């Protein structure tokens, strides 16, 4: 569906894309190096807390805590397999990319409109056809 440009003009004035964040900020969650490593492990393939703790130099309780932050940030979700909880990356990474690009292209088109309209010099001889008294 075609989307006319909404009232997104506030995006242009700020240097940051104004993507709504009703969940914990995923980028903030990933700012922690250990959490990044754990997320990288999860992104590699579904795994349990024990598997992560075995693969990485991080204790089980610490892994659990980090995973909770990643869950809150909607970066990972849980799948139950028997008695084991497996963590896996959520599939809305694509959504986030889409939102970012939507802001990018909206900014681009607004700048384009301003530039195109400012730089347009109407050809008077052609334009006066209807307005000549």
């Amino acid at each position, binding site marked *: *569906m*075609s*989307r*006319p*440009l909404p009232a997104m003009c506030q995006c242009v004035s700020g*240097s*940051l894309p104004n993507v709504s964040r009703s969940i914990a*900020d995923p*980028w*903030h969650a*990933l*700012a922690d*190096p250990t959490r*990044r*490593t754990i*997320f*990288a492990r999860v*992104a*590699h393939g579904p795994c349990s807390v024990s598997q992560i703790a075995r693969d990485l130099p991080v204790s089980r309780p610490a892994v659990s805590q980090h995973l909770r932050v990643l869950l809150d940030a909607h970066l990972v979700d849980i799948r139950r397999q028997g008695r084991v909880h497996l963590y896996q*990356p959520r*599939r*809305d*990474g*694509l*959504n*986030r*990319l*889409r939102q*970012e*690009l*939507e802001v*990018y*292209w*909206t*900014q*681009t*088109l*607004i*700048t*384009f*409109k301003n*530039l*195109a*309209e400012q*730089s*347009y010099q*109407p050809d008077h001889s052609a334009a006066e056809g209807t307005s000549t008294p």
Partner: protein
Amino acid sequence: MSTTPRERTSLQVEISVDVPIEHAFRVFTERFDEIKPREHNLLTVPIDRTVLEPHVGGTIYDVGTDGSICTWARVLAYEPPHRLVFSWDISPQWQIELDPGRTSEVEIQFIADAPRRTRVVLEHRHLDRHGDGWQGLTTLDTGDGWPLYLERYRTAAERTDLDA
């Protein structure tokens, strides 16, 4: 693997401009430099200019203030004054994607609604070709891959924390 609904793999934005179609196309392609948001810089130095080569097979590249070049798109269709299509060779982590199979596509259509009114419809499609959006993050722990974007979000998040 691809369970993502189709509409999620593309986005479309449009705008109406009060100029003739030829002017609209010319400004978009010749002054793309001034149109593109500057803060999305894949170079390590500020962008001096962005060049759009106006022919199929051409590229779009940023030139840094030190002369370094970052080519981030390939022109796939150039049909003045109606249509422009280029590839988007930038990964979800705002880094150059070297594998053409993992790049998306941007089409810009110029439609004359009136002699002096042009509708510009931009579609960015095949976003799913970039993967599910997380792949690049698997290499982040190496350090070098930490993209500008995440840094910026982090800074913003920290600023918000301070304000609170």
